[in-house]
């Protein structure tokens, strides 16, 4: 009889603890997913920034990031209001969209960087080549004119 009472008490205590701490863990889980979404937004922004620095057009990426930003704001607002279910759902939407955006921005950044390095190489090579031709042509013209004027001077003497 004592054992049965002990088991019943233990089950009751376990149930009580589960019910008492469930909202706290749910709240923590929502808070974590909001933090994850925010972190991923920043990571995606960093990649977008690098893509822009490499010369890529990032308008479509920023438009998508702004949509995610709106969702994140709404998720935070729902969290403040205690609507954890809605907040969780919105933050998961953010995370899912950011996962796609992260790979897209990574791809745009990488292609922009490789395109830029090829363009830079061509620009430097053509520029050096062009400058060399200009210098050579200038030198040739200068020599040609010097010889001609020097000869004229000699004839005149």
């Amino acid at each position, binding site marked *: 009889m004592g054992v049965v009472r002990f088991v019943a008490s233990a089950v009751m205590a376990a149930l009580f603890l589960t019910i008492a701490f469930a909202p706290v863990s749910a709240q923590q889980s929502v808070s974590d997913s909001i933090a994850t979404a925010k972190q991923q937004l920043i990571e995606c*922004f960093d990649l977008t920034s690098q893509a822009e620095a490499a010369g890529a057009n990032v308008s479509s990426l*920023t438009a998508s990031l702004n949509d995610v*930003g709106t969702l994140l704001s709404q998720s935070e607002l729902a969290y403040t209001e205690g609507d954890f279910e809605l907040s969780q759902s919105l933050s998961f939407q953010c995370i899912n969209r950011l996962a796609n955006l992260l790979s897209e921005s990574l791809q745009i950044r990488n292609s922009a960087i490789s395109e830029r390095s090829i363009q830079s190489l061509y620009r430097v090579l053509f*520029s050096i080549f*062009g400058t060399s031709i200009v210098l050579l042509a*200038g*030198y040739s013209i200068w020599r040609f*004119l010097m010889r001609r004027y020097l000869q004229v001077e000699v004839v005149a003497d």
Partner: protein
Amino acid sequence: MVIAVTAILAVYTATPALQEFLVLPKGEAFTELWLLGPGHMTENYPYNITSGQSYDVFLGVFNHLGNVACYSIQVKIRNQIQSEPNSMEHNSSNLPVLFNLYAVVADNESWELPVRFGFDYYYDSAQSKVVYTKFLFNDKVLTLNGYSTSWDTSRSSFFANLIFELSVYDRGTGSFQYHERYVDLKFNMTI
């Protein structure tokens, strides 16, 4: 003459290569933050507020920082005795943030958000106070606890101030930092 022409042409053809190595100074880096009235002009801003009514304004940002920026706009409400942002001391208000808006804006591009807002409040005649219960912002409702305003004798109104403070993500600190820009709306809460 030939040397001068050659030198000019050489500098001209060398410019693309030089651009790859020279770092030219940038112009002044700053961000524009604006608030426009319902007609998308700097006029007809809402002032006399009625409980349960909604009002329209436009909030905008233009990025002149020279690179893409991630902004956070913090929305706050204050009365006449609470902390306000200070342009001279470059301080933001120390009031709690009601919520954040996020915007990622490319260089030389703008971001604009149509804002529809409103308040639910009642007049507490015993304490001669306007007590806020809800704040509506773009179809989202936020419960306001502990927000109230007393009669402001200098303004002859129940004064309220809706503030939008701009922060920008700083890679150095890895956090949003106050960007020393804010816009606000001042209201008379009618009873």
